[in-house]
Structure formats: structure tokens, C-alpha cells
């Protein structure tokens, strides 16, 4: 549904977006990750036609967003960053306006407004002025606006920003459910969200794609993927280190915590070990007792850090260890 090719946006001398290419099909939820200023919002603004690209093409449903702007925009629902809404209108007035400008009239308009009001839990504030709404309600009002015409493509710029944990959960459920039938792009810097919602994620940094894959694939890039966390008693850290380094599958080991009764360590596997680390350690347990043993899945935040800040990630890891 969304096809982005060699997209470039230059502001003055700065390449805000530098040669992005990706596609999003119906039924996909694409998570757009990246540090602040990486070009996430700029890319979304270009997809929705708010700002023109400096180079490259974007098509939505086969329509070029520059050359065939109006038919392309009809397919898109857009939640801009900070969820702006007309403060001088009531929620009801605002949603009716959004429906009308999307070409809905009469009964169709009434049904559409009713549907999004129910979906976003806005009944309680329907006749309240947008200006007086809490941030959560204002956010949901703008979100309601973006889905009022049941669009095929949804572009959501930080859809859970500023919501409380319950509201975040609701919005994520909503996105996941809608993702079954639509093509959705959403940006975030909350990594747990990617796991909860996305079928695929792209990490961008300084306008370029630095990683692209399912959340599982991204996690595999982590050093931690396949590492084992181990708590044992009856042995001290140095002795344990000596024993474990004799195993063929172990690359290195770091001590996380050590006290008089037990020691907790993290053991990193050599590459191509493929999960054989934990059984090997269990077999090697002689003269000491395993209290706890589990294999790490790899962590997205660590992948994110190591990709977007290669210099500092290493030191941060050392600190953690």
C-alpha cells in the first residue's frame, strides 16, 4: 500500500531524510524507530503530503502523493505528532468537521462519528470543548479523527505519547486490531511497544535505515541473544569463571552479583551455539548447585542503542555488567 523509494529531504544543509526506501503492505504494522531528530516525523509528513520530498517518490495505494495528492490523501488517516486539534470546537463538532471534509454526509457521517466515538471512548467528553480536554482525551480525539473514514493506510506519529499506561494499552490493542486489515506505520521510541504491536520494525538514524526486520530478527542482533543468566551457590565467582571457561561453548562470563551464599553471572555463548549453552552449563554443574538458569532473548533497547549510538553502547554495557 505504501511504497517509499529513495526518499530524500534536505533542510538547508542538513539531510533530514537520506535515501529511505521501504514498503508497507496491507495487514502489516510497521514500527518506525529512531532517536529524536532521526527523521521519523519528516518521513511521515512526506508520506501524508504535508511537506514535499526533495527527491525520491512515495506512492500510497498506487497514487503518487505529490502528483496525485488528493486521491492519495483520501486513503490516508494521519495522527500528527502532539495530536493537534481545533481548540475552539467541541469534540463532536471537530469529528463532524473531519467527517465532512472526508466527504461523508448525512447518515454515513452520523454512523462514522458514532463508530469512532465508541472506539476511542469519547462519549463522556462529546460536548466538551477540545481546549478543556485532558491530554489523553485530546490525543484520542485526534486519533478518532484519523480513522473516521476507515482509511486503508494509517500514519501515526507517536500515537501513545503522553498517555497513561491504561490508555497506552488500549491504543496498542486498537492499532494491532486495525493492523489486520490496514497498512499502518507508526513511530515510537518506546521499545516495548514494538514487541506489543508491530509485525515489522525499521530503525532509522540520521535519515538512513540502519535495521529492518521483525522484532525477533532485531533482537537476534543483540549481544545478549542466547546469553544465559545463572545463579549458583556453593562456589565463588572466580572459581566458577575458571570452570565455565573450560566449556567449548562459552565465550566469556561476567559476574553480575556476588554475596556470601550465591553468585549471579551472565554467560555469553560463542557464535553458532544455538541454545546449547544452557544444557552444557547444567551438565557441568558439579560441586555447586544451580539456583536459577535462564536463556536471554536479546533486548531491543540494547540493539537500539548499539545501532544508533555505536560509541556509547559498549561503555553502557560495561556499566550494566
Amino acid at each position, binding site marked *: 500500500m505504501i511504497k517509499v523509494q529513495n526518499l530524500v529531504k534536505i533542510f538547508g544543509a542538513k539531510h533530514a531524510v537520506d535515501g529511505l526506501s521501504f514498503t508497507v503492505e496491507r495487514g502489516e504494522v510497521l514500527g518506525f524507530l529512531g532517536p529524536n531528530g532521526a527523521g521519523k516525523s519528516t518521513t511521515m509528513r512526506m508520506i501524508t503530503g504535508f511537506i514535499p520530498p526533495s527527491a525520491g517518490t512515495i506512492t500510497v495505494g498506487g497514487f503518487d502523493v505529490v502528483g496525485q495528492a488528493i486521491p492519495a490523501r483520501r486513503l490516508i488517516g494521519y495522527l500528527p505528532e502532539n495530536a493537534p486539534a481545533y481548540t475552539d*470546537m467541541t469534540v463532536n*463538532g471537530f469529528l463532524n468537521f473531519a467527517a465532512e*471534509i472526508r*466527504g461523508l454526509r448525512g447518515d454515513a457521517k452520523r454512523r462514522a462519528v458514532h463508530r469512532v466515538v465508541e472506539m476511542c471512548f469519547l462519549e463522556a467528553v462529546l460536548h466538551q*470543548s477540545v481546549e478543556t480536554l485532558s491530554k489523553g482525551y485530546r490525543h484520542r480525539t485526534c486519533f478518532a479523527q484519523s480513522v473516521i473514514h476507515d482509511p486503508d493506510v494509517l500514519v501515526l506519529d507517536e500515537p501513545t505519547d503522553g498517555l497513561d499506561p491504561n490508555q497506552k494499552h488500549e491504543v496498542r490493542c486498537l492499532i494491532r486490531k486495525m493492523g489486520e486489515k490496514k497498512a499502518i506505520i507508526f513511530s515510537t521510541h518506546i521499545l516495548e511497544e514494538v514487541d506489543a504491536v508491530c509485525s515489522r520494525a525499521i530503525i532509522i538514524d540520521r535519515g538512513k535505515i540502519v535495521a529492518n526486520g521483525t522484532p525477533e530478527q532485531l533482537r537476534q542482533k543483540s549481544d545478549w541473544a542466547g546469553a544465559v543468566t545463572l545463579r549458583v551457590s556453593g562456589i565463588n565467582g572466580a572459581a566458577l569463571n575458571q570452570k565455565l571457561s573450560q566449556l567449548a561453548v562459552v565465550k566469556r562470563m561476567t559476574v553480575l552479583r556476588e554475596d556470601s551464599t550465591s553468585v549471579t553471572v551472565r554467560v555469553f555463548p560463542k557464535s553458532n551455539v544455538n541454545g546449547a549453552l544452557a544444557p552444557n552449563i547444567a551438565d557441568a554443574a558439579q560441586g555447586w548447585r544451580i539456583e536459577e538458569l535462564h536463556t536471554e532473548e536479546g533486548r531491543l533497547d540494547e540493539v537500539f542503542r548499539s545501532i544508533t549510538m555505536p560509541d556509547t553502547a559498549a561503555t553502557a554495557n560495561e556499566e550494566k555488567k
Partner: protein
Amino acid sequence: MNAWSNIKTITKRELGAYFTSPLAYIFIVIFLLLCGFFTFMVGGFFERGEASLGRPFFDWHPWFYLFLVPAVGMRLWAEERRVGTIELLLTMPITTWQAIVGKFLASWLFLGLALVLTFPIVITVNYLGSPDNGVIFSGYIGSWLMAGAYLAISCVTSAMTRNQVVSFIISVVICLFFILAGFPPIIRLLEGWAGTWLVDTIASFSVITHFDGFQKGVLDSRDVLFFLSLIGFSLFTTSVVLRGHRAG
């Protein structure tokens, strides 16, 4: 057809926005008070003893509008940019032109409403004497067109900034130029050193020069064209300014 319904939707929303804030009511009250005060107290409506609205009433309009119209127009785009709703508006399936025209029409209709509400003055002059109502009608048309020209200029300055005060000040200055270019004392000053052709050229840019015909009851197509082209040009400039912002 589709374009027109988009414009109508925008216009309706904008008009609604005026009347949910106190701005509209304050504007109308101040406009009517000013009209009343200047017509009867300063303009010497009664002392003249003639049944017409030209000098005592319409003469003041270019000066009222100088401050009141930029106050109405300053929020049109500046507010959208400040709150960020411009990003919603311009990603809707409408063209930038439809948004510009829709917003302009809403404010222009609002100014028209304020103007219509001065009708008690027309009733008064009809009660006291027998004026030429055709002349009065043409005065109203001219006044509304002039308000539209000021408003279109305010649209440009409003699109240039997200600060409403800055927008207000700049549009007052530009509108002032369009008044002073035809203001008799300035014209006399210019005649002292400039050639007649230059003075005429400058004066032909003035709203006062073109409003004068309407006040006399003359609906000259050149005057109408002047105001309409000023509106058209300003709205076009607005679209250029808006596009410039988005292109970054």
C-alpha cells in the same frame, strides 16, 4: 462541485470558530460603537442637514478597517501554525486553495455581517429624509469589497508567522500604505515634487481612490476589478507563503 463543498465545509468551521470565542461579539460591538460615534458625533451627521451617508458614515470605514480587519484576519493561519492543526488541515483531501478560499470567505462573510448590522443608520436616514438608497447600497458594496481587500492582506501576513501580534502589526502597516497612497494630504505633499503621472500612479493603488466611486453611487467596473484583483493577488501570495513553509 466537490471543490465547492470542501470550501463550504471549511467556511462553516471557521465561522463557527468566530462565534464560539468572544472575539466575534467584541468585534461587532466595537465596530458598531465606532460607526455610531463617528457618524453622529464626529462626522456631524445632523449638522450637515442632508439625507446621505457618504461623508459622515462611509468616509470613516477605511480607517476603522485599518485596525479591525487585521484583528479579524490575524488568527486565520497564525493560529493553525501555532497549534499545529495546519498539519491536519493540509493533509486532508483538499487542495491548499480550497483551504485558503474557505478561510477567507468565512472571515469576509463575518465582516459582511458586521456591516449589515449597521442597518439602523440606514433606517435613521430614511426616517429623517429621503436619501438615494442606491447610493447607500453601492457604498455598502464598496465598503465590503474594501474590507475583503484588507482581509486578504491580513491572510498573507497571518500565513507568514505563527505570532498573531506580528501578523496584526505587519498587516496594519501594509493596509496603511494602501490608504495613505490616496489620502488627500499625502497626495498634496507628493504633488510638490513628483510629476502628475507618478502621483496618479501611486494614488491609483489606494483603496480610498477606488472606494470614492462607490460612495458617490458609481459602480465602476475598474474599481470592482481593483478590489477583486487585490484580493486574488493576496490569496495567491498566501498560497506561495504556505508552500514556502512546507518546502522548508
